[in-house]
């Protein structure tokens, strides 16, 4: 116990003396939390559209107006030559072309249907896809408008208008930041936990001080606890900073209890710290550890449901996320912050993370050798 106190004293001194670690811990969460949710957004805006209007009718003008008025599109080219529009796609000026054929209005009225051509530049897949989808729904809407105009007797409406009003629970305005901020906080905590611990231990290997430690009668679990506890505390500090930033900047106040958030974070940190230790046991240089940790975090984050929904993943990937501690944490953060879940609702998550913590730390202690 006394040994542990000496170890902790040493670790904290070293951490607070290292200005770059302090910067990482305090500045990184603030910048990431402020910049990421605002800039990295799912919503596709500013889709550049080129309109090829061969009709020049009141309907064609109405349609174009409706498209631009939606706010998702930016008219970069309004021409009557498809060639010209295609050229602007080739130069990457426009993402979508909509071609309105000649006699569009006349055909629509006469034959009750008319063709439109959409050409989508799929180099930027998301933008093209989303742009196409938006256009489709705008055109559908336009179609509806046109038909309603024609019906003189509403009671004899040949096409019953079925209006679907979506109602989103918990995040009623589909606030994107409310969705992203808790997730980004998870990534920060994961990085502090695994990166910093792994690098810290491997640095001792590189400098050679670990050899000195290994010839002392220090107990394995003392050494490991001495490394874990400081970063466990730092992880909780980062969480507190992160929650403060999201409250001040985005006005996000967790619906659930802060106690549940910190309690779960504490267990989660144990798991990632164990992972960091484990990685350090298998690396001899900081470069190796860095690469190792980076790879793990990439997989954890991309497969964790922050940027893409787990429900939309193929079956095998869904099974993989069961072994991803970050996925559980992201889920819990959203449940507690947005929905206000309590301990009982997240009990399965708690069990899962506890198991991770036990397995990772067990392996770390088992593979740590006071031998060369």
């Amino acid at each position, binding site marked *: 116990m*006394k*040994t542990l*106190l*000496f*170890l902790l*004293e*040493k670790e904290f*001194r*070293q951490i607070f*003396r*290292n200005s770059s670690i302090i910067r990482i811990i305090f500045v990184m969460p603030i910048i990431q939390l402020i910049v990421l949710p605002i800039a990295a957004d799912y919503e596709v805006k500013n889709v550049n559209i080129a309109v090829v209007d061969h009709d020049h009718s009141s309907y064609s003008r109405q349609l174009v107006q409706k498209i631009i008025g939606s706010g998702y599109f930016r008219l970069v080219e309004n021409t009557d030559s498809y060639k010209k529009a295609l050229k602007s796609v080739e130069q990457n000026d426009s993402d979508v072309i909509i071609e309105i054929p000649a006699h569009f209005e006349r055909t629509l009225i006469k034959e009750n249907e008319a063709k439109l051509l959409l050409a989508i530049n799929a180099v930027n897949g998301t933008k093209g896809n989303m742009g196409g989808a938006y256009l489709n729904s705008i055109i559908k809407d336009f179609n509806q408008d046109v038909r309603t105009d024609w019906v003189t007797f509403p009671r004899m409406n040949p096409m019953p208008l079925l209006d679907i009003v979506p109602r989103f629970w918990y995040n009623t305005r589909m606030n994107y930041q409310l969705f992203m901020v808790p997730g980004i906080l998870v990534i920060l905590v994961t990085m502090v936990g695994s990166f910093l611990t792994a690098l810290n231990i491997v640095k001792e290997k590189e*400098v*050679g*001080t670990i*050899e*000195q*430690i*290994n*010839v*002392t*009668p*220090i107990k394995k679990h003392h050494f490991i606890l001495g490394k874990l506890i400081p970063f466990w505390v730092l992880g909780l500090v980062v969480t507190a900073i992160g929650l403060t930033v999201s409250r001040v900047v985005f006005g996000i106040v967790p619906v659930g209890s802060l106690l549940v958030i910190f309690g779960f974070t504490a267990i989660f940190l144990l798991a990632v710290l164990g992972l960091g230790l484990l990685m350090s046991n298998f690396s001899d240089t900081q470069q190796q550890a860095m690469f190792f940790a980076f790879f793990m975090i990439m997989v954890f984050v991309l497969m964790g449901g922050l940027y893409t929904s787990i429900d939309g993943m193929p079956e095998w990937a869904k099974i993989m996320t069961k072994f991803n501690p970050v996925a559980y944490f992201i889920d819990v953060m959203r449940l507690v912050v947005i929905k206000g879940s309590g301990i009982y609702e997240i009990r399965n998550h708690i069990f899962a993370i506890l198991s991770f913590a036990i397995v990772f730390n067990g392996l770390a202690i088992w593979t740590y050798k*006071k*031998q*060369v």
Partner: protein
Amino acid sequence: MENKEIVIQAQGLTKRFGDFIATNAITFEVYKGEIFGFLGANGAGKTTAMKILIGISKPSGGEAKVAGFDVYSETEDIKKNIGYMSQKFSLYEDLTIRENIRFFGGIYGLDRKTIKEKTDVLLKTLGFEAEADKLVSSLPLGWRQKLSFSIAILHNPKIVFLDEPTGGVDPVTRRQFWDLIYEASNRGVTIFVTTHYMDEAEYCNRVSIMVDGKIEALDTPKNLKKQFQAESMDDVFHQLARKAKRSE
């Protein structure tokens, strides 16, 4: 050397790495309070043997006891009774002199009061009082090595292992370093030291010389010079080391 109490005993101690035999059945004894020089060219197997004796490497064969404890099964007991200073600088550069003393004292189980007393004595002996709160990274190499040695014997170990402690240190500081070694030896601490400086070999009570994993000679410097009809230890070393077949 009057009581001849044995503190290190090695009997056919061997370490293999695959086909390579780093340490080939070495047998020797080290007595309490003596300064035992463990010489050999680079790659002769000194460091490998030393790592077994300090309990961070398991031997492939043979027997050895350090401070009465077995190198196979009682390594943690060995660690309580020895001090170690490696050729690589092994203090924390981002801690001050005082903090390093405190840390290493603490993990060897000294209480805070003892650490404080010992720190004051140590700083005074080394003349480091003014630098006590400076980071170790700001100290010149010779100073660091003296500090390293003093910290290695802080917990009064029975034996202290020094792996090329004076590499790269200037002659004046080397002399001061050896004064520290003598002082510890006079207090009954056994010194097990490897070195490449043959003038330092002359300071040892007994010297062993390893060539290609085997101990080729072991005696007092005086007797070795007689045996090899040499003027100095340097001569003795050259006569033996020339026979070496393996290089680094």
